[in-house]
Every structure is written in structure tokens, then in C-alpha cells.
């Protein structure tokens, strides 16, 4: 009799989801899906509010990457005003984005994925968390915590608070950057650079020992989409969209993110609250694409900072034109952390950052706008429509995690087919097998609206269904071992 396995909640991700696995009559995996089981509705609840409120409101989409939503929303607001913001404001926004990507990647790599990487996929679930790391390698953990603290501190210094900073809005930013802030940030740089370098070297060694996971946790060709600068280099704040295929061939160049709706479509599936975006010329599902660290490194010709450039050249050797293994998202994240530390240090010497003018003033000049930037997990689009009074009539958010939705489903399906084999003795699935399915998801570091966690309940469940549709097993971790 066939059956279905359900993993719920999926742990060590930001948000609520479950994995369901359909078994055939022989007990073999027939298919596996990643379901996002929460609904937020920000696109609806913003209607009727003034567009000036959007950066503050939209930042509430997420407690991990609020800066990204503030930036995309602010840029959308800039477009409504029809202004070019002052250089100081642009540099502050860039600084905040680097800090945001650094702290978010540190959270993903050190706090959420390192337990698997350092302790092993089959380690006891109770140890696969940062307290397990504490026993295993305290210095590694300390550096990870400090690295995230650095990113958060930059956000707090510039934006006024670590989470949901409201310092940026249509036309610019609200506070000048000071030399005291620069000095404090510079004080962190040597330690941050050393910690990222050590983690990168360690990461490369450790990741290479996970050959089966590299091979089967989401290894498939796809399109990759990301923002690049005018020279084709890595760009997070403002640039043009580039799309390459799984061999690194250019599919589209110099796409204007403001015109995203002309080249990206949004499909939906009945098993998830998250959209399934695709590249329109290829249709759905053939046009599915990946975004985020792996995609950015695949589309960028260079990083633009010395040490990250060395690492990027080495990274690109791992693929034939493009690196397609989802497990290498981890390595891409480490390289991006190095790049962010280098960029933050560079920015501290940028004279524009200290200029007095930080705000461009104008009244409403447009009725429709798109703001885009690279968030930690990939390209983010905010699309707004307003009435003549500047009140929101409609919004469309295209969030990075959604753009990886089909890829995450493919990764779970591939991982289930490879790793999920019932024990010959008990007929049950070993915990390490199920953990590999979650690890396939964690490669993408999905952010399923991390600001709303049910009290005391962690996010992922695994369900196993029989061929006749009967639920035969449901695996949900008890509260005291949820983060296992």
C-alpha cells in the first residue's frame, strides 16, 4: 500500500511550512512537496494607506530582513516622487543593505545550517543546534554570534534599531551618518573579516565532505536571476537584471527591474500560499528560476572587492558555466559575507556618506512605481499603485523566497527520492533521512515571514501519505526538541 510522509514543522528556517511525501505501493517515494502553510496578506492590508507609510509598514513583512523591504519600498517611493535621492542617502542605504545581508547570512550559516555541517546530518536532533555547536567548537560559534551582532549593530547605528528600522523613506533617509558611527563600525572590521575568512576556509573543507548531499539536495539545471551593475559585477542596491541558464549561458541582459512584470510571470499551485514566479518567455514551469546567493554569484562576472573576487573565481570552478548544486548556497553565502565586510569597510571612506543633504523633496509625480533590490535571499520587487492623493490602491510584492519556491520543491523531491528509504527492520524512516529533506530547504534559507511565529511551536511538519491518500505518518517535533 502506498503512503505519504509529512514533515511538520520544517525546522531551522524562518517561517512555517511542511513537507509531504507521497509513497507508492512499493513504499518508494513517488513525489515530495514543500508547502508553505502561513498567509500574511500585506498586499491587501496596505490598501488605502499613504505611500509614505509603506517603508515602515512593509518592513513588518519580516523580522530578519526588514531592511530589504524598507529599501525596496523606499525606492518605490522615490519613483512616485520622481526624484533622484542625494548621494549620502544612497550610500547609507547601500551600507544598510550590506549589513542586512551580512547579519542574515550569518544567522543562516552559523545558527541554522552549521549544526548539520559540523555535527553531521545524522547527529542526534537534540544536538543539532547552537548548543551542540557550543560543545563542539565554541570559538566557531562565538565568531558566528559576533558576526551577526556586527551586522545588527550597523543597522542599529544607522537605522536607530536592529529590527524594523524606519530611517529610510521616499526621497532619502532621515539621519546623517556621523564620524562616531564610522569609527565604531571600523572598529569591528578586523574581527569580522577574520571571522568570515576562517568560516570560509572551514566551510570549503567541510562542504566538500558532503558529496551525496551536494549531489542530491537540489542539484538540477535552472535559470538564475540576479542584479548586476553596469559592468556585470555583483550589485545589491540598484542595477539591472541578468538571467543565465544552468550552463551559464546568457538568457537575458540589462533587464530593467522596474519592468519586471513584462518578463516575470506568477503562477500558483493549490498546495502552497507562496507564488511560483517564472521567466515569461519560457512559460511555467519551464521558466522557473533561482535567486539569492547562488544565483547572484552565477550571474555576476565579478564581485568588485579583492578577496571576494578571488573566492568568486574559485567558486565558479565548481560548475560548468554555472554552479547548479543547491548545497553550494552555503558557500555562496560565505563569499557574500566576505564581500559585504569588504564593502562596508570601503564605504567608511566614501565622502558621499557624510554629506549633509540626505533627503530629496517633491510631491506625488507618478501613480505607479516599482522598487527593487537584492535581499539576502534574492531579488525583491515592490510594485505599488496609488490614487491622486497618494493613497495605496494596490500592491504586488515579489519576494525572493517565492522565486525559489519551485526550486525548493524540486530539491525536496530529489532529496526524498535519494535519501528516504524505510528501515528494513522497523519500516520507519530514520531521523537523519528526514533531516536531509529539511537541509535541502535550508540551503535556500527560506524566509516565510519570520515575524509571526506561533508561541512555542516551530515551523515544519513531515506527512507521509499512502497511495490511496490516507495519512499514514505525521512527524511533528514536541516543543522541547523543536529546533532539532
Amino acid at each position: 500500500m502506498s503512503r505519504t510522509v509529512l514533515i511538520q514543522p520544517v525546522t531551522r528556517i524562518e517561517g512555517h511550512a511542511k513537507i509531504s511525501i507521497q509513497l507508492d505501493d512499493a513504499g518508494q517515494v513517488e513525489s515530495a512537496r514543500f508547502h508553505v502553510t502561513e498567509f500574511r496578506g500585506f498586499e491587501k492590508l496596505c490598501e488605502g494607506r499613504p505611500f509614505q507609510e509603506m517603508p515602515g509598514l512593509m518592513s513588518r513583512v519580516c523580522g530578519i530582513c526588514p531592511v530589504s523591504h524598507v529599501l525596496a519600498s523606499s525606492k518605490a517611493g522615490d519613483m512616485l516622487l520622481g526624484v533622484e535621492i542625494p548621494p549620502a542617502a544612497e550610500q547609507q542605504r547601500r551600507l544598510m543593505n550590506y549589513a542586512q545581508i551580512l547579519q542574515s547570512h550569518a544567522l543562516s550559516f552559523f545558527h541554522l545550517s552549521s549544526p548539520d555541517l559540523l555535527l553531521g546530518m545524522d547527529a542526534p536532533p537534540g544536538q543539532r543546534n547552537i548548543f551542540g555547536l557550543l560543545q563542539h567548537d565554541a570559538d566557531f560559534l562565538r565568531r558566528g554570534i559576533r558576526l551577526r551582532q556586527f551586522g545588527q549593530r550597523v543597522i542599529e547605528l544607522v537605522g536607530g534599531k536592529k529590527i524594523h528600522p524606519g530611517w529610510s523613506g521616499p526621497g532619502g533617509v532621515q539621519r546623517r551618518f556621523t564620524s562616531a558611527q564610522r569609527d565604531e563600525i571600523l572598529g569591528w572590521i578586523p574581527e569580522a573579516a577574520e571571522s568570515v575568512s576562517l568560516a570560509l576556509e572551514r566551510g570549503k573543507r567541510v562542504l566538500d565532505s558532503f558529496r551525496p548531499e551536494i549531489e542530491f539536495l537540489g542539484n538540477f539545471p535552472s535559470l538564475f536571476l540576479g542584479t548586476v551593475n553596469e559592468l556585470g559585477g555583483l550589485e545589491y542596491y540598484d542595477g539591472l537584471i541578468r538571467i543565465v541558464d544552468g550552463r551559464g549561458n546568457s538568457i537575458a541582459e540589462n533587464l530593467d527591474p522596474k519592468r519586471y512584470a513584462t518578463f516575470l510571470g506568477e503562477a500558483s499551485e493549490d498546495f502552497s500560499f507562496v507564488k511560483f514566479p517564472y521567466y515569461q518567455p519560457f512559460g511555467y514551469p519551464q521558466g522557473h528560476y533561482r535567486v539569492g546567493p547562488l544565483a547572484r554569484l552565477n550571474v555576476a562576472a565579478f564581485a568588485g572587492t579583492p578577496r571576494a573576487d578571488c573566492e568568486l573565481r574559485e567558486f565558479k570552478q565548481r560548475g560548468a558555466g554555472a554552479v547548479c548544486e543547491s548545497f553550494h548556497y552555503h558557500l555562496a553565502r560565505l563569499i557574500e559575507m566576505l564581500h559585504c565586510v569588504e564593502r562596508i569597510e570601503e564605504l567608511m571612506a566614501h565622502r558621499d556618506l557624510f554629506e549633509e543633504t540626505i533627503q530629496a523633496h517633491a510631491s506625488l509625480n507618478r501613480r505607479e512605481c516599482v522598487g527593487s533590490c537584492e535581499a539576502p535571499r534574492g531579488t525583491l520587487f515592490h510594485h505599488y499603485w496609488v490614487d491622486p492623493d497618494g493613497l495605496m490602491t494596490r500592491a504586488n510584492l515579489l519576494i525572493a523566497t517565492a522565486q525559489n519556491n519551485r526550486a525548493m520543491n524540486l530539491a525536496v523531491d530529489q532529496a526524498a527520492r535519494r535519501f528516504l528509504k524505510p528501515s528494513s527492520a522497523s519500516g520507519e524512516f530514520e531521523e537523519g533521512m528526514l533531516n536531509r529533506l529539511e537541509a535541502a530547504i535550508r540551503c535556500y534559507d527560506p524566509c516565510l515571514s519570520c515575524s509571526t511565529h506561533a508561541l512555542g511551536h516551530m515551523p515544519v511538519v513531515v506527512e507521509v501519505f499512502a497511495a490511496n491518500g490516507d495519512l499514514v505518518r505525521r512527524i511533528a517535533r514536541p516543543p522541547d526538541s523543536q529546533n532539532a
Partner: protein
Amino acid sequence: MRTVLIACGNCLRGDDGAAHRVLHLLGPQSGAELRSVQQLLPELAGEIAGAELVVFLDAAIDCDGLSVEAVREPEAPPALTHISRPSEIVVLSRALFGFKGLAFQCRIPVGNLSTGEGLSPSAEGFAGEAARILLDLLGHPAG
């Protein structure tokens, strides 16, 4: 003596903001570093490292009376969930950052965690009582 008071909670969820209210009542006169957070995060372990006294304040829906007690550190390493507890922050801080101070936990009884700002009269009363106790603890007896 370096003292850190950490208030945890969400001011937009009614009484869940009770700990923040206590910090507001204490103000700079307490002589302590006052930190308002929505949740406890591992980074706090580094931030409290050099303190001699740390007090974690939070709303508690499962207690009848105000309590201030020492943070009990678990004998075995705890599993980390999305909701960190003071004991976990203290364990991390002692192990990773050399925290040697005392750690207390102040639990403020509350009843209304629905959406909206402001405390219920009961929570407001407990917040005031907590502020008085903490001032006493810090060597600034009220009134």
C-alpha cells in the same frame, strides 16, 4: 557595578509590553543599561558579557504574582527554539563570552495579550511594583 536590564516583549500586544513599561518607569535614574527587545537573541550573550548583574524582564501569562528570582541554568545544554529563554542566553554568555555576573529573571503577571497598545490596570500595577523592587535591588530604594 555594570548592570543590564533587558525588557522583552511586544508593546503592540497589550500587556506583552509590561517589561518595557518597567524600564520606562525606571529610567536613567536606575543607573543601569536599559535594553528593550522583542525577543531574546544569541547576540545578547555577547552584550551582557561584562555585566555584574543582569535582569531579564518579561510578561508572564502563567503566574499569579510578580516574581524576581535567579536564572536557573540547565544542567544539560538546552535545545534552542525560536523562543530563547534567559537561561539559554546566560549559558551562552558564560561559555562563550566569559560572563561571570549574577542573572535574575523578573516575571510580570499579565492577562491581556490582544492586539493594541497600553497595559491593563492589573499589568500596570505589577509593572509599578516591579520597578520598585528593581530600584531596591539596584540600591535606589523608591520613596
